[in-house]
């Protein structure tokens, strides 16, 4: 009989007293919020949903645009409403606000600044209420305590609408593009709602640009079945086998961190888990898009092969980092006002990016650390210098990985205090418990090795000319068939996608 399941994870995490929040709030605000019942890609309900949707799509795909958009919107509403139909109102409000504002900007260009401000308010207010209100209350509470006051203001504990950070950002970018004159506003509300609510990207991205997807939605696209199948299968493998296989161990390791090897393994496993979880989701979303003929673009490009922090951000969550570049960094001033200002704007952008990920100081510190590393890199130019040494690129890769792992500890830890304690333990380099740790987590270590091997292969092939081998092309469906079966046979305990909480 398998051991009795027990609850581990955010709800039971205890640890060290956080720096800025009292011990009773030692769980990240907003984390572990209700996502039960969401139609996640690795659920049986989604399989049924997808089967019905694509059967209908065979008929609908060649019909008029209005019919297609209506079908996509209704299906996406069913997909989202299955989790919590009340939040369809919020999605609809967000969609209509962005749609009408874009039209108003085109109709009355002399008042476009006011319209843009109103639109940003309409998008950011729900985001602030649902995602950041409790964080603000808790922070105010802490400051009041520090000042000798009473504090103890009650938290709102609102249910966070899943995907809110993604669809509000998509909506805002659409309106900003229209404001800048880079995009013509669509006159058809169904067209816009199909873009905003398209179910593959609705709850966890990628954050698509209207300029990229709206034109694709306009004309019937040719379904790319094989391309989509490859992405879907590899996405499921990343999520169900690797990320879910690592999740239990990551929870346990962060719940009761031990010695140095324990903490290093925890950081490495979480680095692998969050990458495979999120890029797995993205791959499935992209694959589903290709089944419909839509191209969502690349969102992850083997980020752990980056040889500089700058390159890391060009490879990790590309749709988000380019969003922040285009709508935060450049409007702030970008590099137009000199290199010093550019560094400042970069740091601000990184901090905002940290806060986007979640309402907790751990995310702020995560953003601040990335900002620090990027700024240091810009100032010293160390990647270029080290790359000139023998095995310099390998060393750069290792150094970037080290920095990223350090930041992941803050991203995953329950509190800043716990992260600090873990990092102190990590850099004590006391590996007496290494053997026991590796033996206890041998399966997870195997998964890490698998991921490492994949990256090593990509690294090796990236330095060689590419040529197609006919035998491999023939064997490709067989290989992916085996991978799909492996997803079912070796799947870990089903979990929500990590990025649902953002």
């Amino acid at each position: 009989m398998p051991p009795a399941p027990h609850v581990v994870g955010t709800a039971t995490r205890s640890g060290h007293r956080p720096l800025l929040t009292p011990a009773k709030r030692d769980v990240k605000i907003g984390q572990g919020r209700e996502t039960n019942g969401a139609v996640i890609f690795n659920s049986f309900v989604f399989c049924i949903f997808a089967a019905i949707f694509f059967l209908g799509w065979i008929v609908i795909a060649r019909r008029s645009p209005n019919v297609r958009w209506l079908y996509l919107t209704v299906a996406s509403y069913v997909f989202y409403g299955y989790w919590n139909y009340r939040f369809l109102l919020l999605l609809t409000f967000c969609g209509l606000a962005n749609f009408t504002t874009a039209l108003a900007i085109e109709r009355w260009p002399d008042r476009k600044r006011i319209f843009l401000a109103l639109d940003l308010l309409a998008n950011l207010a729900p985001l602030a209420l649902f995602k950041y209100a409790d964080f603000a209350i808790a922070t105010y509470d802490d400051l009041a305590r520090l000042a000798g006051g009473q504090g103890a203001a009650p938290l709102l504990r609102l249910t966070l609408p899943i995907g809110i950070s993604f669809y509000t950002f998509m909506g805002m970018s659409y309106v900003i593009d229209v404001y800048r004159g880079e995009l013509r506003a669509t006159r058809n509300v169904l067209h816009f709602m199909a873009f905003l609510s398209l179910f593959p990207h609705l709850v966890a991205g990628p954050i698509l640009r209207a300029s990229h997807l709206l034109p694709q939605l306009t004309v019937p696209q040719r379904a790319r079945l094989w391309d989509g199948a490859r992405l879907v299968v590899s996405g499921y493998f990343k999520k169900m086998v690797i990320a879910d296989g690592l999740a239990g161990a990551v929870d346990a390791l962060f719940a009761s961190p031990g010695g140095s090897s324990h903490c290093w393994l925890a950081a490495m496993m979480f680095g692998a888990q969050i990458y495979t979880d999120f890029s797995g989701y993205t791959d499935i979303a992209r694959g589903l898009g290709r089944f419909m003929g839509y191209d969502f673009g690349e969102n992850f490009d083997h980020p752990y092969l980056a040889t500089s922090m700058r390159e890391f951000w060009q490879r990790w969550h590309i749709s988000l980092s380019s969003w922040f570049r285009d709508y935060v960094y450049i409007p702030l001033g970008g590099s137009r006002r000199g290199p010093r200002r550019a560094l400042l704007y970069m740091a601000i952008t990184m901090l905002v990016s940290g806060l986007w990920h979640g309402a907790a100081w751990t995310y702020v510190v995560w953003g601040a650390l990335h900002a620090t590393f990027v700024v240091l890199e810009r100032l010293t130019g160390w990647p270029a210098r080290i790359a000139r040494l023998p095995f310099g690129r390998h060393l750069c890769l290792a150094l970037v990985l080290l920095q990223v792992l350090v930041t992941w500890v803050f991203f995953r830890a329950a509190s800043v205090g716990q992260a600090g304690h873990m990092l102190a333990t990590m850099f004590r380099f006391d590996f007496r418990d290494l053997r026991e740790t590796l033996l206890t987590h041998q399966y997870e270590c195997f998964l890490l090795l698998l991921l490492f091997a994949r990256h090593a292969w990509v690294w090796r092939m990236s330095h060689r000319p590419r040529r197609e081998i006919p035998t491999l092309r023939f064997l490709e469906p067989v290989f992916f068939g085996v991978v799909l079966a492996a997803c079912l046979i070796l799947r870990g305990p089903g979990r929500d996608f990590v990025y649902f909480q953002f």
Partner: protein
Amino acid sequence: MIAPELVNSPHRDPSGDDGPRRLAVLIAVAASVMTGYVLLGVRPHKDVRMTDHRLTMVQADWVDAADVVFTGDSRSQAAYVPSAISGTVGCRLLNFGQQGRRYTARYFAAIDRVLDERGSIPTIVMGITPLSLSENGLPYSDQDEIFDPIDRWTTTHLDLFLASLQPMTKWDAIGLVRHGSHRMRRISDCEPDGWVNIERLPADPTAELPKYRSDFQQHRVDPDLEAGLLRQVAKWTTAGVLVVGERSPTSRAMLELEDQLSGFDEQDFARRFRAAGGRWFDGDRAAFDTWDGSHVTRDAALSHSAKLATFVLAERTASALRGPAIRAEPLQ
């Protein structure tokens, strides 16, 4: 012939026109591998008769079904064999132990539902483990009692087939690599009376110890759960129910680990259990054989059940001699 403007188009299928054929091959290969997985029984875990999930569904249908009810977590499931001792005790017995179960008010209410109060001496036998008195245990919930029609139908008709599609756990995968499929087996045989006969090959008397060590680092025995259980024992005994308790049989190593880490003081608990009106069975202090350090083997279960049956019978006879039970208050 592809139109020149389409050659560099991002919307052109780079895999050419054979996408549907390749997708069909992919699905066929995946289906073949899965069929082989099921037919060859690659997964080391085998459910015989019914799965644990179906057993829970069967247990949810028990109403006034037994004169003697065994309760507790998976150790109780493995240790108490109703079919082997019903002759000795001479009444209806059911094992209402459940995997990972924690003693909560909801579970007590479910025990009341199973126990037939109309019998002369309704009896509850409580297997006590530190897990069942800590937050590591699973609380009894709607999920253990309410099954939607689809779940009920599939569990009734497709139970073992669906179980054969279950994935391998990481322990399965490691075991298969280490021991080979012919030597690696974990059989879970659930009987309709609630006994679960567990067999694990190769036996590993230390397998469960690390998990419990880690569990007790997070949650030790909860005094509130202990107090709640003792209050319920007092309530039952006042209501005329014979309540027998014992430390659920397990390996010596597990007992030592629990004594060190769980915060459970057996002697003190037994004293308070008796004070609440219960009878404490500590007549069998043998070192039990287990498959995994936690759950006893079939032989150990049969032998222990026989000794326990003798004790229960003696207590029931003594209770009968003291006169019919007087219900001071209705069972709650």
